[in-house]
């Protein structure tokens, strides 16, 4: 009964919504023009990065806080005791991890660097770093994180703190996160570099703090 009700409700909703989507809309504000005309002052050449770190950088600041928060919540929820089960390593997969990790690092830095003028950026770079960590962990080359050591906590927070410090420091320019056009590029790079490392650690932490059980292979 419930299924039927919710299901038909969702179906009706979807139909209504699609119907409304297909209606012609009055032209609204087109921000593409505004973005394009301010690109020069944004410090980067890629519009999405300009929006993410300059025009709407404040969103990103809070978003990083959300991500950091997720790790804290996981830690606060309490970590299960890690299961320590001896197991043989799989040399082929290990070698894959060994082989793939250094290129992943290069790719991560590349994405960070590319973010300034083409798709890429701190989040994607951090995700690649985290993926490398996950791969290493899955193949048994990186143990799971038992507790957040001080250095790890610093690492995970540093990016956010740098961002926060830059945002606060720029208050001197008259507004939060108001980059002076001349230094914008460098500051954004600084922030992104910090974020890459921290995001990598945070995203890796999401996996490495959670995954306490090495599986039952062998």
């Amino acid at each position, binding site marked *: 009964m419930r299924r039927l009700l919710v299901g038909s409700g969702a179906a009706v909703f979807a139909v209504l919504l699609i119907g409304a989507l297909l209606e012609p809309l009055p032209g609204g504000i087109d921000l593409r023009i505004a973005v394009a005309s301010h690109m020069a002052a944004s410090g980067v050449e890629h519009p999405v990065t300009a929006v993410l770190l300059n025009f709407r950088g404040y969103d990103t600041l809070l978003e990083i806080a959300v991500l*950091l928060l997720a790790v804290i919540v996981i830690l606060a929820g309490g970590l299960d005791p890690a299961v320590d089960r001896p197991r043989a390593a799989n040399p082929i997969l290990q070698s894959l991890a060994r082989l793939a990790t250094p290129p992943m690092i290069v790719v991560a830095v590349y994405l960070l660097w590319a973010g300034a003028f083409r798709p890429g950026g701190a989040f994607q770079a951090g995700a690649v770093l985290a993926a490398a960590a996950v791969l290493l962990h899955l193949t048994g080359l990186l143990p799971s994180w038992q507790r957040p050591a001080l250095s790890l906590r610093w690492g995970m927070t540093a990016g956010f703190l740098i961002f926060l410090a830059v945002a606060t420091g720029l208050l001197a320019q008259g507004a939060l996160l108001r980059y002076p056009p001349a230094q914008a590029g460098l500051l954004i790079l600084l922030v992104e570099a910090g974020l890459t490392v921290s995001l990598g650690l945070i995203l890796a932490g999401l996996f490495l703090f959670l995954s306490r059980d090495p599986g039952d292979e062998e």
Partner: protein
Amino acid sequence: MTGLILLPLAWASLAFVLGPGRGKWLAIGGLSAQAWLAFDLAAKVGAGGTALLHPVGGWGAPLGIDLAADGLSAVMLLLVQCIALPLAIHAGAYFKRGDAAGAYFWPLAGFLIAGLNALFLSADLFNLYVTLELVGLAAVGLVAAGGGAQQVAAALRYLFATLVGSGLYLLGVALIHGAYGTVSIAILTPLVTSDAPRLVWIAGGLMLAGLMVKTALFPFHTWLPSAHGNAPAPVSALLSALVVKASFYLILRLWLGPLAPLTSAIAWLPALLGALAILWGSWQAIRAERLKRLIAYSTVAQLGYLFLIFPLLPGTDALEAGIMQAFAHGLAKAAMFVAAGVIIEATGRESVMDLSGAAGHLPLTLFAFGLAGMTLMGLPPSAGFLAKWLLIEAALDRGHWGLVAVVLAGGLLAAVYVFRVLRQAFLLAPADAVVKSVPRRLEWVAFLLAAASVLLGLRGVDLVRLLGAGA
């Protein structure tokens, strides 16, 4: 204005770096500064009579994000800091060293407060979504922190509710953006008219529905009692006093702002749900077995009042009534949860029936509970009374006698559950009752919050004046 956001972000993340269980003084210091900033902001807004604007990044809407502080924001910010500071002091004494539930309390609470402040200051629908998530996830974390199965289950229930809520809200924002190309509230407000395309109507409905889920409006309240009723006392207090108010504030913002041309058709819906919430929540509170669950259900009921104002908007006294109720309930409910925490800590029992004799052992706490109860019942001279007064006057102004009846009935029902606790507490203690001593600081915080909720009733005029500024 930005300090209110940056400070808690800073102390929260630094508290995390400091490590489990640390950061108390950082938090209390930061909160003190924030309280000063909030009062300063209120003074500025009140003096200027207009909204203060801060274009982040210097771009200004629609390209950038604007922060805006008008009377309404200033009031809510005051509420947050005024409740968070005493609760921080309370939590400092509540969580023992090595307490699993308290290990990450400070960073979580810091992000929660930062999220709340950011939410109250933001004038950008998408940015509001991010702040909503910040608040929601921090709140979930606080519920789950170090808890047992019950807490984790409650946290999960809460998590999914809050995620669905923000999901609906996000879709609404997406549709609004699709229709108008901007998410700035100030720019949208003149653009949305009553002949807006259907998309915008759907968007409005989605946003409001999502926020109602987050505010735990009946019948979306099912997550609230377990979340608020199972968390540690300072957490319950934060959640009940502040977090649910955030989404209510946002509903109000939308209702009075961009969605105003669309809402007249559905103005009675929230009021109807609110009325049901009052009746149902009170009824459940009257039946509840555990003290904290009783208080949590009381929150469900009290939130109902907030929604009674919608058919009365925009009208004299209606907004004032809602905000006064939010403020009063915030202070009182914080006091009540803190008091309940003290009682449970001292007696080691959780059920209402086991409270016998508490009045003798913990007179100050019970007094605080009673004062807070006064506010919830809407008895004079509490702020809750002023809210009720304003609400009844606003309803009479429009000739809505039904609302008057609901308000009055709600007050009586509140009396039933409040006195259910008090009379139990006044009963003679069973001979075998063992009472632990608790830090006096815990009791005093409850008392201060409760007293504030009552004494605010004497200075309601300031709040109303501030609310009128820049609206």
